[in-house]
């Protein structure tokens, strides 16, 4: 891994999602945040995670048809690079345009940002100390992700797919365990997260095994905490000054999450290169966060917002990329929330969005069940 590889992987894992996700920050009022100098960090975290989800969803829409029609990885890459590049440029352009417009609309009431709520005016020494503890623990986890490794048998499949996928043979026809050709691995071909790793590796010039074991875990652990922070800010509301404390407790639960090998906390630190980890520790909490925003907007009779209208179905699609069960889980969350909303709030407002959000993910889930 040389200097240019590090630079490129930072661009791919940090700058590109941020650029693509600027569209969501724009829709959610980043310009307002800049104007009033609060909530900016949350808007950036929202952009980063939202952008990653947008890129994953777009990649899923490109990769699965390529798998099903027997295309090669070279063809998938030739298709993905311009499309994903265009998504980043368009996301950044739309986002910046909206931010600029909000920024210049100085008279208007600033709209609450995702995760924004009565921010404390000034951090006292205790809060600064708590943030320092949180930052130190986060850094510790990131350093451990680089210096330590967790042996998991499933990597023999998932990471191997990223490494051994040939440039010029149909996707998912090579046997990752031993080599040679085999019948199409449909179950895995519908959730091609390893191909995303391979794409990152090809574009950065870093070998897939290093992307999978080193750079991707660092990005995903950071992103998972970004989601936890967004969620915490929504949950805490007026108690926002407790945010660092909340996050420190989150870190304790994650660090001591080895009580079971099946917990999402365990997956986050131990198996972060696998799509299941991205689903358990990133996409499902993010869906939870989006639902919290949605329900709050419904209760306060605010417009549902384009950010949620796009992000909910995109998250379901991104879940399909991570694991074949991902779409079912996200759709289950959306469906149950729709039923509960109907029962508790007698509100039909969010129902069409919740049900429509299940369509793209549900289609992949159905495809999986039919082809199984």
């Amino acid at each position, binding site marked *: 891994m040389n200097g240019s590889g590090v630079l490129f992987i930072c661009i791919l894992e940090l700058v590109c999602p941020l650029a693509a996700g600027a569209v969501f920050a724009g829709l959610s009022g980043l310009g307002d945040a800049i104007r009033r100098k609060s909530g900016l960090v949350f808007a950036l975290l929202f952009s980063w995670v939202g952008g990653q989800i947008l890129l994953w969803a777009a990649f899923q829409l490109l990769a699965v048809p390529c798998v099903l029609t027997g295309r090669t990885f070279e063809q998938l890459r030739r298709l993905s690079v311009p499309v994903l590049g265009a998504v980043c440029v368009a996301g950044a352009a739309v986002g910046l345009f909206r931010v600029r417009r909000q920024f210049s609309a100085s008279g208007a009431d600033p709209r609450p940002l995702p995760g924004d709520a009565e921010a404390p005016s000034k951090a006292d020494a205790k809060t600064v100390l708590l943030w320092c503890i949180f930052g130190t623990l986060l850094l510790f986890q990131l350093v451990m992700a680089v210096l330590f490794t967790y042996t998991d048998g499933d990597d023999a499949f998932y990471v191997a797919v990223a490494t051994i996928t040939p440039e010029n043979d149909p996707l998912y026809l090579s046997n990752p365990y031993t*080599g040679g050709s085999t019948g199409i691995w449909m179950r895995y071909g519908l959730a091609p997260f390893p191909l995303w790793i391979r794409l990152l590796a090809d574009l950065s010039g870093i070998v897939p095994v290093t992307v999978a074991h080193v750079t991707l875990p660092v990005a995903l652990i950071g992103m998972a905490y970004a989601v936890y922070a967004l969620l*915490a800010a929504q949950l805490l509301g007026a108690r926002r000054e407790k945010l660092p404390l909340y996050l420190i407790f989150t870190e304790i639960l994650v660090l001591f999450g080895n009580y079971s090998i099946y917990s999402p906390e365990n997956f986050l630190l131990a198996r972060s290169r696998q799509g299941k980890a991205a689903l358990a520790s990133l996409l499902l909490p993010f869906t939870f966060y989006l639902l919290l925003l949605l329900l709050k907007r419904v209760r306060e009779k605010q417009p549902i917002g384009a950010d949620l209208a796009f992000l909910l179905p995109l998250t379901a699609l991104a879940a399909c990329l991570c694991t074949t069960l991902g779409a079912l889980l996200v759709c289950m969350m959306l469906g149950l929330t729709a039923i509960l909303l109907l029962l508790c709030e007698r509100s039909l407002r969010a129902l069409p969005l919740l049900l429509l959000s299940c369509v793209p993910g549900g289609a992949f889930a159905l495809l999986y069940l039919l082809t199984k």
Partner: protein
Amino acid sequence: MWSELLSLLRQYEGTGLIFLLYLLALAYLLITEKEKEKRILLVYLPLAVLILFLNPLTGKLLSRFGETEIAYRMLWILPVTPSLCYAIIRITSPLKGLKQAATLAGFGLLFVLSGSLIYRSPYFHRAQNLYHVPPAVVEIQKMVYYPGREVMVAFPMELVPFVRQYTSTIWMPYGREVMMADFAGEAEVFSQIMNAETVDTELLARYADRFGCHYVVLPETKPMTEKLTDYDYEFFGRVPGYVLYRSLTADFFDPYNLP
């Protein structure tokens, strides 16, 4: 079926203490949380998921699609960590000064004692390179690399899961799939011969030949009934902990350009 799901729930809980604390947090939020959206998502949604998970119909549906063993993933929907942290902040917010600090420290200690530090797992260990694979795999790949061709190499089971994570240039007669319950066949037999306490050299040579192995890698200290060099294999090299043998009969595609 229901008992299978219950056992999955138990596996998911692990030691059970964190899950017990989560259920207590759920009960606390059920009683005290007044904001509707939080009530729906932190209380009703988890209860609905638990009911759905423990429902015999769910089990039947999952088993129909052969997915029972991964049904525990439904439990990932439960917001265990966010609920616990939120409940703690709510409980400790009205407290002041030393009382608050002591309660928070108490909860922190409870989490530490109820859980287990992830880095203490026996599966975590210091990475020896940026590939996070055993150095022997990297060394062996360099030694057996043959430009433009794949080579068939039989590895001891402890190296098998890492080889093809690192390189596509090595094929193997058996992979990690031989460890799976429903896998059976000649590859499994070969893996058993390679990984027996004492290797039956004659059988090993026969199977290696049958699978067209160009190389065989064995642990340095592995007891063998005879020398492998007595069976159309030559000593090829050594990496820390392992010895490599090269076949004298396997087709190397171009025998005049051996690596």
